[in-house]
């Protein structure tokens, strides 16, 4: 499992706009880079990242090979209710990784 760094405020006021930042360690091998022997290293990238708030998808990103290694994304959401934010990364080979973070909304 790749290392993921997720930044979500632990608590927020109802209706507040919160910023979420997420990064996963991944080479994002573009398929355009030659190795030492001059052969192209095959493409291997994270294709999509999505975030669900209490089960409902609130944000999704589609990545192409031009996204830098260790893909980072930041976005915002309205703090609506206490519960769980889940984060899912899917690679072009179909591997998925999901992480969750709790949030308390007053």
């Amino acid at each position, binding site marked *: 499992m790749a290392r993921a760094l997720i930044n979500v405020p632990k608590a927020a006021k109802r209706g507040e*706009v919160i910023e979420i930042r997420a990064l996963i360690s991944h080479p994002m091998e573009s398929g355009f880079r030659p190795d030492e022997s001059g052969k192209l290293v095959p493409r291997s990238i994270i294709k999509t990242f999505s975030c669900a708030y209490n089960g409902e998808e609130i944000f999704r990103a589609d990545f192409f090979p031009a996204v830098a290694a260790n893909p*980072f994304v930041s*976005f915002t959401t309205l703090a609506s209710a206490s519960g769980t934010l889940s984060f899912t990364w899917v690679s072009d080979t179909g591997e998925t990784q999901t992480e969750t973070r709790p949030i308390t909304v007053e």
Partner: protein
Amino acid sequence: MAGQRDASRREVLAGGGGLAAALAIGPARAEAEQTLAAIRAFTGEAEVRRGRVKLDIPVLVESGNSVPVSVSVDSPMTAADHVKRIALFTEKNPLPDVARFHLGPRAGRAVVATRVRLADSQTVTAIAELSDGSFWSHTTDVIITLPACAEG
């Protein structure tokens, strides 16, 4: 696949003149055609207007391997009026598409950020699709002193 791409290129060449002017990509070049085709795949037949979108990217970057990019859109982000999608395109990367972001009224604000690779000094374009079906764009020039993948 190649035939499909040629067809979309022809469509863009036939109908994309206004779009090219609107985005100020300049004289037709192979890379610009590829970028216009990618933009057309995102926008369909809709007109792309300048404004409402702010693309924040450094003007001069030392390394093209990881360039911070932020896009914000002037939108109230309500159920009736919000940003649905934001896409990033490059002019001279091997592939013009960089990333697409899907958001909605629950975002509260239309601001996204990521880090991208730039293979050369070039223009970068952000396009936002609003809930009323309109498309808005901002294009910026970036100068790279060490392009991505240069060290192979």
